[in-house]
């Protein structure tokens, strides 16, 4: 199964939310839409779901244009950021509602629901109301509902942003096991690059209603096409040195090493993270972030260096990558 968006435009009032957006997601592929808030990623998701209509462009699922098909019949499974569980129904009834509406028989419903409850370890919560569940449990109910939809496409809208960091890490493998890697295309909206890198086959980095760059996490990390991508992907952020001759040079903090022959710097601050530490230093080429091993001893004055081949060069005016 595939999903294909062709030259989608969407305006809200006088604001262009999406401009000429193209995106194709292959059979079983997971694409993350990554970007700051307001970049249009959630709108794109709502258009695919049919909750909003594009002003222009086509959306095809398995080669069939679905723009005219209302959300009710589009067969997408969506997990909302707020989970959108029906607060007046207990877990079982939450899952049952859609199945019943779609005309599945009682015996079949019961079987499918008890299966899914077991898979998601929610058997003991079946009769509880959403308000009685923990955040992680609510999230799993939302997943279960999307799974029971038998969708052609999975859409995930910041599904983990309401969970604490530890729970997120626990749920990631679960999500991967249940939704990602089946035959359905998955579109995953997030503003968390770590999450996108961990789950997605490809990442589409969005900005101002356009896709800035799309590619595998490795491509985005190693060959960012623009300064924006370079700054968004990778933590700590890439260093941008003082521009010279219309060229901006970027170097990742993890590519910088201590070297007696290198540029001399003055230490401004340091954060110790255990296995690694992050230094903030002042050099003649501007302030630099540096990541080095946690057990390294650091003095006030240090010298650093890096390989020329690790440098990323961008045009100062357009922000685009200069071919190397």
């Amino acid at each position, binding site marked *: 199964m595939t999903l294909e968006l062709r030259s989608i435009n969407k305006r809200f009032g006088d604001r262009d939310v999406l401009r000429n957006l193209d995106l194709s997601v292959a059979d079983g592929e997971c694409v993350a839409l990554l970007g700051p808030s307001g970049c249009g990623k959630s709108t794109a998701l*709502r258009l695919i*779901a*049919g*909750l909003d209509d594009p002003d222009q462009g086509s959306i095809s699922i398995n080669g069939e244009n679905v723009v005219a098909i*209302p*959300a*009710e*019949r*589009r067969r*997408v*499974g*969506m997990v*909302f*950021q*707020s*989970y*959108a*569980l*029906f*607060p*007046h129904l207990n877990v079982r009834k939450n899952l049952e*509602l*859609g199945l019943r*509406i*779609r005309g599945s028989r009682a015996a079949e419903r019961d079987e499918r629901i008890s299966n899914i409850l077991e898979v998601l370890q929610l058997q003991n919560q079946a009769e509880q109301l959403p308000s009685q569940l923990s955040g992680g449990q609510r999230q799993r109910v939302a997943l279960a*509902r999307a799974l029971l*939809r038998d969708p052609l496409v999975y859409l995930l809208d910041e599904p983990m942003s309401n969970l604490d960091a530890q729970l997120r890490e626990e749920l990631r493998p679960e999500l991967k096991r249940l939704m990602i890697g089946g035959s359905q295309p998955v579109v995953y909206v997030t503003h968390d690059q770590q999450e996108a890198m961990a789950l997605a086959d490809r990442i589409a980095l969005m900005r101002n209603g356009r896709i800035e760059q799309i590619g595998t996490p490795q491509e985005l990390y190693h060959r960012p096409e623009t300064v924006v991508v370079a700054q968004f992907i990778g933590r700590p952020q890439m260093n941008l040195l003082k521009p010279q001759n219309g060229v901006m040079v970027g170097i990742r903090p993890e590519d910088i090493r201590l070297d007696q022959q290198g540029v001399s710097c003055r230490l401004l601050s340091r954060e110790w993270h255990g296995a690694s530490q992050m230094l903030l230093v002042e050099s003649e080429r501007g302030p630099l972030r540096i990541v080095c091993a946690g057990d390294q001893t650091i003095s006030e004055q240090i010298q650093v260096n890096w390989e020329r081949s690790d440098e990323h060069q961008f045009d100062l005016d357009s922000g685009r990558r200069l071919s190397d």
Partner: protein
Amino acid sequence: MRRHSAWIVLLLIWSLAPMLWQLLTSFTTSAALVDGSIPFLQRWTLNHYRELLSSNPPFWRYLANSSMLAAMSTVLTTLLAIPAAYALTKIPKQWRQPVRFVVIAAALFPYVLLFLALLELARQFHLGNSLLALALPYSALQMPLALLLLTAAIEGLPVDLDDAARLEGLSLRQRLRWVMLPLIAPATASTAILVFLFAWNEYPIALTWLSRSDLLTLPVAMARIAGSSIYSVPYGAYAAATVLGAIPLLVLVLLFQRQIVRGLTNGAIKG
């Protein structure tokens, strides 16, 4: 707690004393009401209640009239207000503010001023002396308040819920039935109670629309006792009537005070 208790007692006395005095009066013989020298044990009677229930038409008739009228108004208002409120939440944005302003203005309008025109309408269409017909203006008069409360409730629902229901394959009608209606049930309950209280207590329109004594609502019937003569109001019987007429309301308020408060404040402030 200790620090507040004096104030709490004062508050309760202030709120309840007048009602308790009525209760006391209703059990006091007519003679004792005007003669403080009658010994304590000879002051009490149930006669006022007996009188009320055996008068013509019997007192329970008014209670029944009021209950019926209030129930009909409530049902009618709720049935009309829910779809109307839903429609109001779906109108285009630029219209929403003016429409809301009109609704609020109507809700604030001192409706007493309308009685004359309503009376003319009643005459024109022969709606006087019919409890069923009286429910019409009652619903209309309470419609603005009902709309405010219900639109606030509907707008308060998370948008995601409706979207999630659509993706589950629910049609508009199914979403209203299975998602929206159950979720606005608390607001509907408070609306219904407020409409009920209004219809139960309404006076000027009932006064001008109803003249047959077997159709009078409670407030009109009681005012009629008062109007019979300034000087010889049968206070004992009257107090008994107050007690009987108040009981259903007090039960209602005690049972639903939470909904009343929530409904009033939600609609009022968000609206």
